[in-house]
């Protein structure tokens, strides 16, 4: 089971956490991956400059509402075993 954690702290919120969360929720359900990906939230990761911060496991990525699909294709899908 892969865990994706999205920062919902103040700064990331202003940069579009909600759109990122909603984008990921949509993609996960469209691809029928609800059983292999767990989506969670976290408060500030201390890296506000690069927000919206998203973790796959322990690895950190910078995602914006515009790059959600790209991030999903490039970084999420290949990591699913």
């Amino acid at each position, binding site marked *: 089971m892969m865990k994706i954690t*999205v920062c*919902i*702290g*103040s*700064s990331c*919120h*202003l940069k579009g*956490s*909600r759109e990122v*969360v*909603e984008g990921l929720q949509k993609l996960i359900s469209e691809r029928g991956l609800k059983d292999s990906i767990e*989506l*969670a*939230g*976290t*408060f*500030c990761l*201390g*890296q*506000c*400059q690069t927000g919206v911060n998203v973790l796959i496991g322990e690895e950190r990525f910078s995602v914006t509402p515009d790059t959600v699909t790209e991030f999903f294709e490039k970084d999420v899908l290949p990591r699913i075993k």
Partner: protein
Amino acid sequence: MTKKNELCADIGYLSINHAGENLCGDHVEKVETDDSLVLVLADGLGSGVKASILSTLTSKIISTMIAAGLKLEDCVETIAATLPVCSVRGVAYSTFTIIRIVDNKRAEIIQYDNPKSILIRNGENYEYPVETLEIGGKRITKADIELQEGDVFIAMSDGVEHAGVGIRYNFGWKRSDIIEFMKTFVPVGFTAKTLTKILLDECDRLYDGQPGDDATVCTVKMRPRTPVNLMFGPPADRADNDKVMSLFFSSPGKHIVCGGTTSTIAAKWLDKPLVPKLEYLDPEIPPTAEIEGVDLVTEGVITVSRVLEYAKDYLKDNGKYEKWSCGRDGASLIARMLFEDATDVSFFVGRAVNPAHQNPDLPITFNIKMRLVEELSDCLGKMGKKINVSYF
């Protein structure tokens, strides 16, 4: 805590003006002294500027004299003796109701010619006994009531009873009708301000939005003291974390933690997991989180900004009530706890500067946090709550 502090008075008052008038001919004045609270609702004869000046004068004279420590009887005597009698109509210019709450244990209700104030006790109308006094040639009624938790007093000007005259009723709304109407809302647990608004909205409706008289309602609700503690931001010095957390969590009452870093520290101190939710119940407000042992965990600046917006609106016309009264987002939850539940609010404000937030692109700088606390505590003070702010 002393016995005196077991109950406290929640107060709300509002007026609607005679159709076409900019000024209200009714006036409510509130004065607090060490051991008592005095509310004066005065109704100037007629409407418009003359009525407004006279009711303001009457309520100011009474409340100022009482605040200066004079006996209530003396104040009434002065007013009764000095109130001018209208040369045209042959009646006094201003009628009044005085509610004096002493030590939150007793209420004195002194009235000159206003409709008898209503007391709803245990959900039922309670007809309290009154004695009639003759002071300065005027008939004054006086009641002395031992207070109980949950007592709701409703004082009003005659414009409330006259609502609907000739429109929906021949002789207006009877006192018994008003009692029946309010009895359905009191047990719900609304605040004094909300109860006041409900009654006046109904009046306005009965008048078809064209009040034939100024109508004023002043509600006093006796409720137990409920402290709420709100922590906002981590302490400036990391070494103080434990001390501040132990002070915060040992304070009686409910506990709200605002801010991501702050809640992380709180969770660590409590040794419980911090579980953020991913539900966006209001698209603009970040989701809340859960920590066992904390009543509410929210994001910081954005959420509190919205609470401040609701607080300012509450003090004006409370038009956003529908939004925060049932919302489950962080800001609505804080608003309900602070505006409705709390009688005493303690802010624990951390002065730590989040380096990640000091970015010119972000509207959430340190100064904004300090300003939010100042403005919010100011608003809550105006709502009649006891406020205590500590900085760390």
